[in-house]
């Protein structure tokens, strides 16, 4: 349960308004094309430069569209990109305040880390601090690990006393609504590439 203690810490830090930082870097750095070092296999795969592909589905952070965006708008959400997701922020805030019955300040805090909707990584931070939304802390790498219990994290952030006592339903990571008590995957992940466990056959 060490990770839960870590998340208690960062959620508490959010509650204090500490280290809430925007996704954007303040420095304007020149775009740099990375060198591609992977092997190339010369194989004609019938590439068709003329084919136009239209987006069907989009996902950045877990939780955001699924839980907080009105169903009627999911089709539109799936056709957006992170730079356009801000228009959905009021719906996320409304979910937190109206559906969950939590304070507006909590909604604002959550919105500030969930939008623009993408998994944020701060590569300048120690990788040991990786975990969903940990980039919002002063020393978090962020991203999303396979082992992150994003359900409990999300439930705790929305419903628990951790960020605010007002309207809270439970203590962090406890019943009735701040944990689903499914804390890990049904099979172990691999320590090496490709990390996801072998399929069930």
């Amino acid at each position, binding site marked *: 349960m060490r990770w839960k203690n870590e998340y208690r810490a960062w959620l508490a830090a959010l509650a204090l308004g500490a280290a809430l930082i925007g*996704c954007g870097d303040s420095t304007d750095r*020149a*775009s*740099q094309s*990375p*060198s*591609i*070092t*992977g*092997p*190339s296999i010369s194989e004609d795969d019938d*590439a*068709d*430069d003329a*084919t*136009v*592909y*239209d987006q*069907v*589905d*989009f*996902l950045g952070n877990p939780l955001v569209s*699924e*839980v907080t965006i*009105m169903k009627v708008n999911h089709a539109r959400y799936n*056709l957006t*990109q*992170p730079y356009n*997701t801000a228009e959905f922020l009021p719906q996320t805030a409304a979910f937190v305040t109206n*559906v969950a*019955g939590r304070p507006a300040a909590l909604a604002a805090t959550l919105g500030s880390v969930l939008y623009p909707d*993408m998994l*944020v990584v701060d*590569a*300048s931070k120690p990788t040991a601090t990786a975990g969903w939304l940990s980039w919002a802390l002063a020393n978090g*790498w962020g*991203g*999303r*690990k*396979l082992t992150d219990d994003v*359900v409990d994290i999300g439930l705790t952030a929305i*419903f628990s006393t951790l960020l605010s006592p007002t309207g809270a*339903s439970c203590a962090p990571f406890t019943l*009735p*609504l701040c*944990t*689903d*008590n*499914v804390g890990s995957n*049904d*099979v172990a*992940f691999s*320590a090496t*590439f*490709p*990390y*996801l*466990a072998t399929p*069930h*056959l």
Partner: protein
Amino acid sequence: MKKPNLTRRRVVPILVAGALIGGLAAGRHLFASDHQDTPEVELSPRFDVNDVYAFPAATPGRTVLVLGTSSPLTPAATPSFAFGTKDRELYQIKVDNTGDAREDLVFQVTFTGVAGHQRVTLHGPVKPRQVGVTSSLVGGRKTVSGPVNQVLGSANGIQLFAGPRDDPFFIDLEQFFRILPDRRPSTGPLSVPPTPAGSFRAPGSAVDFLTGINDMAIVIELPTSMLVADPSHPGKFGVWGTTSRARGT
């Protein structure tokens, strides 16, 4: 149990009003995934982006990106699994490393061949030809290509795996639908009206609904320096996943 009642009083009427998720065809991935939440995705599960991950690799200085997509919700029969082929579908992981929430780099993953004999090709990370919801293939030299269900590429450069894997997500979805009955799926075993509940279940009683379930995974590992804008001063980057349909198909 008074607190949950309080919460339910707030939650349920709004759900009834249609404010939230409903009609999950297969009832999976409620929280963490962009599940079958629109008619188009419901009818075309290969376009369903379930989950996106970004985490440090086992080897220092490297990062892993995962795009989990849905095949029909069956727990077995690998030969029947298939990715959408490039004449119909484009899978992308996109990266913003300049802070404007617009993709500076894309990974374009395409497939050819029939189920059981598919090949995968990766282009990227590379600057896309367009930014936004309309895409075209970057073309040019392939980064990695080969059969699905194999580890491809270089452990020092870019590694690629595409194929069925255990679905990495976990949730007590059954109990979730007892707490929020309005969100249960319209078909499948979870579509039966559940006994209402005001709490998740105790340890030992809770059930991971995704036990024994697979997804179609695309996993890419590469040096983190290839993801940031300035490798000498690694900063922030944002990651998201998309699926796209070839126009006219």
